[in-house]
């Protein structure tokens, strides 16, 4: 089965080509039908591959063919299925199928319905092709392709200026990171002579990454950090996280699929895929851990105060991705990926549920909602499941995976990061229940919007329910109940059967974490459900801190001043230099020639005799030269 893994990405590609051929005005039913069926088939293929692979530490060879010859080296493309890849395939195809189904209802009657599915199909193809890439080169290709799809889908409603700006911003900010990845893989290629993971890892672990100007150890660190830069951009880690909240301008199913479950997780996947490289350089791993920890805390802090339902969840995504990075960084390879796995489901769920709400009330402002629980029972319950999973309440999925990471952080001795994680966990519980209470409980704030609110059709609720179930049970895939199956599955990629570290469960910490989460929920309930504590007063009393969180630590503004403004300044200087200095010099040269011509013009008197006299003297000069040259005349 494993050798047929290429079918998984191929099916959505077929869908894309088919939809492209059908044109922009194809009927909705046909478009959606083809897409959902093909993605579902792709899911089945992924599932088959996942199970066929088993937890054996072999059968993960690469299938490649030559793509381009580069001197004595060749660049190959093809596919390779490792356990990690298989897991990612499964996650991507599962979430995609559900989101495809959900979008049938959400995008109903959009005039570019077919285009939307085209882009989505292209995205799923690219994402899967990224996942099963056998080398860094192909990974980079599809890395950029998913970025492109993200760009297209964020800017899907192109007529909205905010959407256009957000699309541009997302592409450019992620590209900033991609340059790092670009340079990183070039350096790895140059030093190891190949883009293949195995070759690179072998060279890195044996200290044979060599270039004339840098030692192997330093190069490993440099390359790992450069690769990580790519992951930082894609996974919206600090300091390149600023694009993700803006990306919420895209349609909500897109946010669920691309900006929560799959594409943004690609950065985490990249670090996991190149884990031997990071392990070979301890420094790089520490950097990953710290960036992850900072991001987790920062995201959670900003999410506390946002008013836009999608932005809260977007910051929550940033925060959760930070957890994953931190997990990888502290050596908990399996836990990081475990969290990626669970997060994909409950975050997709939260987004889709939020989408359902937005679809119903046509606003994204939390303070214009309220009391929707009565009208949207399914949405309310599924959202609650997602929120509980995110908050990390026992026994929902998020609890297991997040707690493993926090546990690993503590056990590996990163005390500061541990406290970051715990504070973030408390905030997480608070902000997601703030959203929950503001949306589904209390009194409606906007009667008109409340009046036409209603539950979506089955295409929207069925995905929600499935995801809610997954949000509940996904955590059990890596517990004592199934003998830590996921962990063992992932570890099978390594011949030693161990990647990073694993730690035994820490019951005391579990209890503490759940208590912290429940405390967060309680505070949220006291503020927004049964208003015992006034949110406004608290905000006022906190003053500066509140503003800092609300204005996202002013990072957007700082970047604008620091980077965009500088860039524009340089651009105008270049423009000025080009127009008024370089071109002016050219103009002056031209002018000088012209003036010379004008000056010489006055020798043109029209008097033939004058010309003749001059010609005569010219002749005399020539004769004189000739005579002195030859001599003997006088």
């Amino acid at each position: 089965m494993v050798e047929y893994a290429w079918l998984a990405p191929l099916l959505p590609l077929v869908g894309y080509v088919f939809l492209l051929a059908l044109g922009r005005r194809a009927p909705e039913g046909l478009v959606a039908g083809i897409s959902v069926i093909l993605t579902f088939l792709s899911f089945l293929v992924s599932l088959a591959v996942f199970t066929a692979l088993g937890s054996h530490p072999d059968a993960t060879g690469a299938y490649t063919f030559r793509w381009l010859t580069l001197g004595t080296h060749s660049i190959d493309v093809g596919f390779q299925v490792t356990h990690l890849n298989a897991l990612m395939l499964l996650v991507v195809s599962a979430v995609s199928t559900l989101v495809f189904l959900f979008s049938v209802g959400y995008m109903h009657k959009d005039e570019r319905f077919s285009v939307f599915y085209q882009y989505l199909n292209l995205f799923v193809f690219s994402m899967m092709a990224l996942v099963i890439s056998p080398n860094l080169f192909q990974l980079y290709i599809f890395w950029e392709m998913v970025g492109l799809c993200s760009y297209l889908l964020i800017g899907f409603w192109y007529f909205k200026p905010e959407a256009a700006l957000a699309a541009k911003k997302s592409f450019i900010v992620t590209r900033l990171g991609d340059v790092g990845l670009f340079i990183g893989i070039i350096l790895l290629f140059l030093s190891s002579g190949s883009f293949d993971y195995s070759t690179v890892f072998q060279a890195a672990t044996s200290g044979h990454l060599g270039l004339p100007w840098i030692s192997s150890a330093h190069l490993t660190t440099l390359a790992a950090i450069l690769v990580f830069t790519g992951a930082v951009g894609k996974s919206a880690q600090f300091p390149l996280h600023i694009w993700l909240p803006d990306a919420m301008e895209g349609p909500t199913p897109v946010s669920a699929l691309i900006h929560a479950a799959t594409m943004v997780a690609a950065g985490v996947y990249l670090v996991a895929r190149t884990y031997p490289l990071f392990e070979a350089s301890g420094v790089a791993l520490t950097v990953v851990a710290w960036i992850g920890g900072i991001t987790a805390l920062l995201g959670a802090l900003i999410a506390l105060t946002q008013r836009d339902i999608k932005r809260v969840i977007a910051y929550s995504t940033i925060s959760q991705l930070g957890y994953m990075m931190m997990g990888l960084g502290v050596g908990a390879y399996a836990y990081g990926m475990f969290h990626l796995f669970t997060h994909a489901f409950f975050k997709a769920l939260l987004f889709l549920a939020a989408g359902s709400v937005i679809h119903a009330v046509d606003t994204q402002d939390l303070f214009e909602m309220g009391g929707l629980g009565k009208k949207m029972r399914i949405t309310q319950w599924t959202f609650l499941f997602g929120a509980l999973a995110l908050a990390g309440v026992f026994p929902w999925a998020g609890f297991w995976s997040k707690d493993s990471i926090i546990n690993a952080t503590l056990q590996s001795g990163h005390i500061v990061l541990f406290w970051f994680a715990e504070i973030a966990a408390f905030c997480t519980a608070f902000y997601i229940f703030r959203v929950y209470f503001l949306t589904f409980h209390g009194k409606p704030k906007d009667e008109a919007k409340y009046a036409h609110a209603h539950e979506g059709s089955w295409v929207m609720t069925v995905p929600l329910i499935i995801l809610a179930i997954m949000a509940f049970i996904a955590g059990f895939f890596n517990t004592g109940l199934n003998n830590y199956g996921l962990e063992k599955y992932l570890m099978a990629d390594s011949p030693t059967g161990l990647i990073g570290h694993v730690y035994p469960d820490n019951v005391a910490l579990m209890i503490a974490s759940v208590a912290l989460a429940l405390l967060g929920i309680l505070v949220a309930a006291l503020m927004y459900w049964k208003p015992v504590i006034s949110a406004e007063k608290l905000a006022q009393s906190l003053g500066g801190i509140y503003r800092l969180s609300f204005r996202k630590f002013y990072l957007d503004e700082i970047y604008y001043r620091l980077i965009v403004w500088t860039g524009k300044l340089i651009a105008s200087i270049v423009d000025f230099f080009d127009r008024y200095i370089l071109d002016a010099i050219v103009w002056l040269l031209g002018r000088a020639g012209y003036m010379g011509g004008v000056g010489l013009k006055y020798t043109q008197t029209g008097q033939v005799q004058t010309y003749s006299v001059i010609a005569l003297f010219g002749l005399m000069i020539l004769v004189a030269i000739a005579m002195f040259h030859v001599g003997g005349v006088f």
Partner: protein
Amino acid sequence: MNFVWNGPMIAFYIIALGVLGAAVLMLSVRKVVYMALSIGGVFIGAAAIYILLGAEFVAVAQILIYVGAITILMLFAIMLTNHKAEEPPFQWTGRNIFAAVGSVLMAVVLLAVIRSTAWPVQPADVHLNAGNSNPVAIGLVMFKQYAFPFELVSLVLIVGLVGAVILAQERKEDE
């Protein structure tokens, strides 16, 4: 160089003086008509030199064409234009100074070159005409060796004639 004072030699110097005198005269008189007349003297003198050099046919042609045709033609042109025209007195303007200096320099250079060159010496009895009279000899060369250039020159004459007629033609204003 030893000068042998014989008949042709004396004749040559007299003619040469006459020619140069006529040329200088031409440039020094102010009335245009006199100038045209004095140039006739130069032409005749040149013809005499040709005879001295044994080129009788060229000498006759010179007299016929230059003295007979060209000088007369010029007189006609003078009559047709401003026949009272007088050359203004010579002024030492910058251009004229340079022209004079240039001409003198030219003369000096030419004379110096002529003087410093060892010219071949030819015997008195070179038989250029191969036994024929000079006109016959020239005719033979002209129509055998130089037939093609001869035809071309006739073409030049025709074109010159037609051109002159068209140029000199009175034109209507609106043309």
